[in-house]
């Protein structure tokens, strides 16, 4: 919105979090129960020496030390996760583009150790990496500038921002980020996770209140805990819950002393990575203005992937960037590099330059990476002279809509907003989780499955990340495979299947008109 005037989002927001049928939940809990029973049995066998123990054992001289891991803490890891461990940490040996090469590995002792066979599974379709705009590819001529910067500046900057670590590349990058987001200033950091955990303590402290969404990422939670402020949690994307908390906070003040809060900070994410939902920004901004709170929005997944020109949720809803106080985001996902940024008004960014823990103690971003971000951002904004960037953003939106629509038609339970490129498909049962991932790898499709503790116990899911670099053929291959998987594993639980012929919704009779 170059003229700065907001136009409010007119289309209805369609988000669905369908509940599974009862028998599915019963079987899921039964599955975990049986796994637990067997776990106890195996632990007993291992402790009594009948079975060989492959797990961590203390060294001889430390036998009488207090054990490093209490037995029950990793009961789940040892007994349930261990059985299906081969679906995670799969090593790859090519760039994480739309097709990649996975190294084949087998296990001789039921996943306790792995061994590489030396073979590589080539051209696996990548539905797992956060490669929304397809910018993480092998070197091609457009990455020439990155090569030049690597040769000129070396590989790293061994110093912090306050000392000798600010390069002119960083300054250029910060100006570009501010221009991209349409804000006054920005500051970049070396790692996305660390951006949150080191800057939230600089903004809020004791005597402040943080209202954070139920499903916020671990980096936001860690930053909030390290800051020392009081944390209250509101239900996911639920504006009534948030409003109630805000009212109580403003009226009654701090818990025991009844003094007024110094500041109230609302922390939300743009697109939630495990649910695929998009934050309800217009209503949050309205609440924030009424109760005079500050808004911190973490656009790790939404920057570059959501919005008509890829500028994130603020543009998606057509709102004014001045309404959000602190923009935070990472460059890992859509820009194909690493690092994070915080942007907003100039006085905010100046304060962070002086007081952020990262600026004082941690090394700054490496120059080739900064150059890669500059290159990708210019590509998306169209400053390199082509419209390729815009085309990719549009392609991502088209792919997302197509993928979600087809999955809905097939009858899977999909969470999240219709427009979000993160698509979680619910699997529920732990056995199906493993079977799903392994079968799809056999068909040369790489997916990511997530279970407890990243998701609630009964809601294990497979999470697809649609990319602009996926062609229609790749998506169709994946959809066919998913269709067969769904029939094989009985995954099509949805009771709200949409028809494949939406033009027939308004028809009152199916007679042919003569």
């Amino acid at each position, binding site marked *: 919105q170059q003229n700065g005037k907001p136009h409010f989002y007119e289309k209805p927001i369609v988000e669905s979090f369908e509940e599974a049928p009862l028998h599915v939940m019963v079987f899921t809990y039964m599955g975990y129960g049986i796994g637990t029973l067997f776990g106890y049995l195996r632990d007993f066998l291992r402790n009594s020496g009948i079975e060989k123990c492959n797990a961590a054992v203390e060294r001889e001289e430390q036998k009488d030390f207090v054990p490093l891991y209490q037995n029950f803490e990793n009961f789940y890891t040892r007994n349930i996760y261990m059985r299906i461990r081969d679906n995670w940490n799969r090593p790859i040996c090519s760039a994480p583009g739309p097709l990649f090469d996975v190294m084949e590995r087998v296990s001789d002792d039921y996943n306790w150790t792995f061994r590489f066979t030396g073979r590589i599974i080539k051209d696996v379709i990548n539905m797992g*990496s956060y490669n929304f705009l397809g910018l993480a590819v092998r*070197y091609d001529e457009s990455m020439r500038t990155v090569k030049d910067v690597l040769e000129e500046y070396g590989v790293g900057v061994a110093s912090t921002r306050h000392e000798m670590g600010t390069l002119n590349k960083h300054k250029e990058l910060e100006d570009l980020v501010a221009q991209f987001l349409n804000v006054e200033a920005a500051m970049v950091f070396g790692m996305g996770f660390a951006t949150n955990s080191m800057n939230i303590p600089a903004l809020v402290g004791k005597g402040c209140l943080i209202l954070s969404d139920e499903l916020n990422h671990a980096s936001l939670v860690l930053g909030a805990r390290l800051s020392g402020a009081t944390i209250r949690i509101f239900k996911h994307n639920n504006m009534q819950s948030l409003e109630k908390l805000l009212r109580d906070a403003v009226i009654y003040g701090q818990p025991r002393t009844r003094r007024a809060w110094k500041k109230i900070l609302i922390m939300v994410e743009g697109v939630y990575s495990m649910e695929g939902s998009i934050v309800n920004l217009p209503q949050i901004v309205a609440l924030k203005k009424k109760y005079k709170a500050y808004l911190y929005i973490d656009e790790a997944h939404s920057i570059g992937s959501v919005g008509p020109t890829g500028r994130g949720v603020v543009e998606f809803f057509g709102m004014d960037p001045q309404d959000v106080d602190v923009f935070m985001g990472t460059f890992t996902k859509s820009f194909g590099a690493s690092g994070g940024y915080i942007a907003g008004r100039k006085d905010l960014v100046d304060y962070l330059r002086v007081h952020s823990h990262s600026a004082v103690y941690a090394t700054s971003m490496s120059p080739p990476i900064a150059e890669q971000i500059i290159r990708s951002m210019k590509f998306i904004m169209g400053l390199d002279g082509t419209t390729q960037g815009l085309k990719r953003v549009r392609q991502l939106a088209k792919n997302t809509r197509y993928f979600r629509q087809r999955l809905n038609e097939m009858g899977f339970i999909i969470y999240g907003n219709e427009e979000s490129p993160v698509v979680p498909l619910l699997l529920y049962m732990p056995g199906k989780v493993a079977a799903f991932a392994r079968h799809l790898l056999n068909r040369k499709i790489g997916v990511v499955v997530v279970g407890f503790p990243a998701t609630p116990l009964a809601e294990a899911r497979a999470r697809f990340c649609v990319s602009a670099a996926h062609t229609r053929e790749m998506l169709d291959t994946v959809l066919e495979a998913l269709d067969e998987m769904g029939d094989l594993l009985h995954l099509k639980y949805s009771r709200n299947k949409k028809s494949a012929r939406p033009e027939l919704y308004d028809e009152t009779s199916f007679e042919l008109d003569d």
Partner: protein
Amino acid sequence: MFVTVISQAPAYHLILEGILILWIIRLLFSKTYKLQERSDLTVKEKEELIEEWQPEPLVPPISKDHPALNYNIVSGPPSHSIVVNGKECINFASFNFLGLLDNPRVKAAALASLKKYGVGTCGPRGFYGTFDVHLDLEDRLAKFMKTEEAIIYSYGFATIASAIPAYSKRGDIVFVDRAACFAIQKGLQASRSNIKLFEHNDMADLERLLKEQEIEDQKNPRKARVTRRFIVVEGLYMNTGTICPLPELKLHFEASQVSGLSSLLVLRFCKPAAGTELQTVSCCSWADTEVVLGKPLLTTFSSVLESQPHFVCLFKDTLFN
């Protein structure tokens, strides 16, 4: 008999008793009242409170000539000489001990991996973010540090700030040097354990603290059996530049084992360039230290995927968890 008592009593007595009983009944059933009236806030009062409340500004104002706002802009590679604000200076400021940031072999390797893998990893380690170069680097690091296995992280600060809470939880005891760097302090804060500081590089002070802990343990042996104890020291302290006296520490380690003190596990944060000297100077092997965390001062040998990787070398048993 009761009736006869009543009929024999004088009339005024009966009337007085009757009045007293009625008065008691009235008192029992009347509403109690408190001295200070308290009632819930009305809706109008709540709205007024909301209107009146003014938060502090999000950030306090900073003066324009704070030194951190006027950065020294570096415009060249940080090797032995560095170009700051346009002038070329001798570089005594970057942590470039072995001078490998500018090494042509390193650059060539980085370029080769840039050509093969591109720049970013697009995902965490668990979800297709593990490359064969990561595994290769971990093997080499483990061999270099003579331990069984190693794990790498992508940001130095985050390495130790996440490794400490992974081992030490609430209720455990950590003995840490007073001059430990900020990353260690943040890690300890996140772990919520009990922290006991000993004077910088002072082994006698550490011994005193350990003895005090032993006395405490004897008071409550059941609790002592489940609390873990850690000592955190740095190989080369970032704040003071001194080296930690590892042989004496090792002596304490063994001595306290003999005297029946419970487990001690040592985390060490060191810079391997200095660390190799450390090894020869103090003549003790890494086998005695459980966990070694280190910070190589250059990117990985064969990729430019991370700018400042840091690593944790462990014995195989502890690595898995």
